[in-house]
């Protein structure tokens, strides 16, 4: 399979970037998209050029490290992570555009690598449960009904890849934030911090420069883990409830 790639090249955060065209030949349809980029990078290194920088780690679709916008779609045409996207979804002779996540809150570090630490700051402002360390509590001491456990797990599946922000026309982090809020707020372990969590995380999300939600649904369509759009409604409900309860004043 021979392809034309148009890849965003940017040396560092301060310099302007541009789309640069490359030709790759002999691509197997069984390669993952990242393996195809590895192949390109090997050729670039042999030619004495700078390889294309991109984030990746597990290459199993569970870590959330990889992520790039392929032909205008976060993680490309399939609903999966970029590492699990295979070249069989492209055709011989295709021209493929590869760009980094575009959002003011995710500045480009180099080429396709963006700084997603804004997500860490949202998590740091409430995306946890405070528990005393020491002996592990008895597992049956806190009963969790099965439907609640399933709902929590559905939202715990978020891997923080940032595809929702990349796909959103407003660069909004509502789906990411709501996944974590719903995951912890529905569980009894998350109960004591139910109000401060949602208020703190929404405040942090706004402070990081993410946009607001206009309910376009692009985030949920792009999410490789299938976090549903209704999570955002649940977070909104939690936020309004916490505000009316005066959660900020405690």
């Amino acid at each position, binding site marked *: 399979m021979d392809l034309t790639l148009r890849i965003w090249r940017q040396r560092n955060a301060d310099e302007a970037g541009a789309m640069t065209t490359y030709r790759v030949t002999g691509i197997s349809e069984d390669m993952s998209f990242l393996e195809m980029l590895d192949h390109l990078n090997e050729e670039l290194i042999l030619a004495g050029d700078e390889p294309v920088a991109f984030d990746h780690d597990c290459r199993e679709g569970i870590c959330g490290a990889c992520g790039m916008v392929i032909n205008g779609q976060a993680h490309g045409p399939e609903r999966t992570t970029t590492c699990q996207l295979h070249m069989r979804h492209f055709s011989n002779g295709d021209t493929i555009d590869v760009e980094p996540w575009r959002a003011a809150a995710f500045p480009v570090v180099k080429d396709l690598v963006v700084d997603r630490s804004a997500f860490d700051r949202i998590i740091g402002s409430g995306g946890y449960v405070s528990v005393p360390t020491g002996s592990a509590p008895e597992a049956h001491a806190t009963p969790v009904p099965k439907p609640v456990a399933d709902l929590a797990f559905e939202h715990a599946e978020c891997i923080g890849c940032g595809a929702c922000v990349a796909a959103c026309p407003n660069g909004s982090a509502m789906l990411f934030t709501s996944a974590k809020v719903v995951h912890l707020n529905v569980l009894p372990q998350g109960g004591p911090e139910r109000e401060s969590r949602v208020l703190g995380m929404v405040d942090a999300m706004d402070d990081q420069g993410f946009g607001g939600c206009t309910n376009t649904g692009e985030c949920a369509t792009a999410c490789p883990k299938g976090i549903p759009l209704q999570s955002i*409604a649940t977070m909104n409900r939690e936020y309004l409830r916490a505000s009316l309860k005066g959660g900020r004043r405690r």
Partner: protein
Amino acid sequence: MALATRADRPPSLIGSVWRSTVGKKAVMAVTGVIMLAYLVAHVVGNLKIFFGAGEFNAYGHWLRTVGEPFLHHEWFLWIARAALGTAVVLHGVAAYQLSRRDLAARPRQYERKRPRASYATRTMRWGGVIIALFIVWHVLDLTTLTVNPNAQEGRPYENLVASFDRPAVTAFYIVAMLALGLHVRHGFWSAAQTLGANSARRDRVLKFLANALALVLTCGFIAVPVGVLTGVVS
């Protein structure tokens, strides 16, 4: 032992809600629902045009007497106008501020833009601007009668027919009503989502209601100029 002290004054509910994107959206949702409820009443009133000048003008007169003798003449009307005016301003200011923020949060578009959101969703901002301009024209035309060719106080039927005798006005009216239908189609469901009323179970019902409301409002409002055009109303 140090005592826990509270140095800062806690932020007010209204202030913190208005400052956050989620809270500001809630303001937009509540004001939107208020305006939507008004529009439903408005379209019902409008349809009386098909029952003749007598009934329509009597309805216009009755609106001024609602609440009497508890309320003075026209007080109900002015209370409604104040509430609606506040709703329009809050909705518009919140929309402007949120849009500025949203555009700044996505400074660069992708090479291949592939909007998958519906047409109604993508036209909320400019559709809203069209509707806002229409409201200004509409009030000048049929409330203050400033730009109305007939401009007879107390005779809304004749004023309306005279207004729709101008093709450009009719065209603008129909465009604005189509924009309104699209706005309601996305806006009603979106308000439910913003206020946390949506869930996986209710999603389809809410979307159906949004489409039904949009369709009924648009057809109901457009029926009036179509009636004038076809001579049913004259």
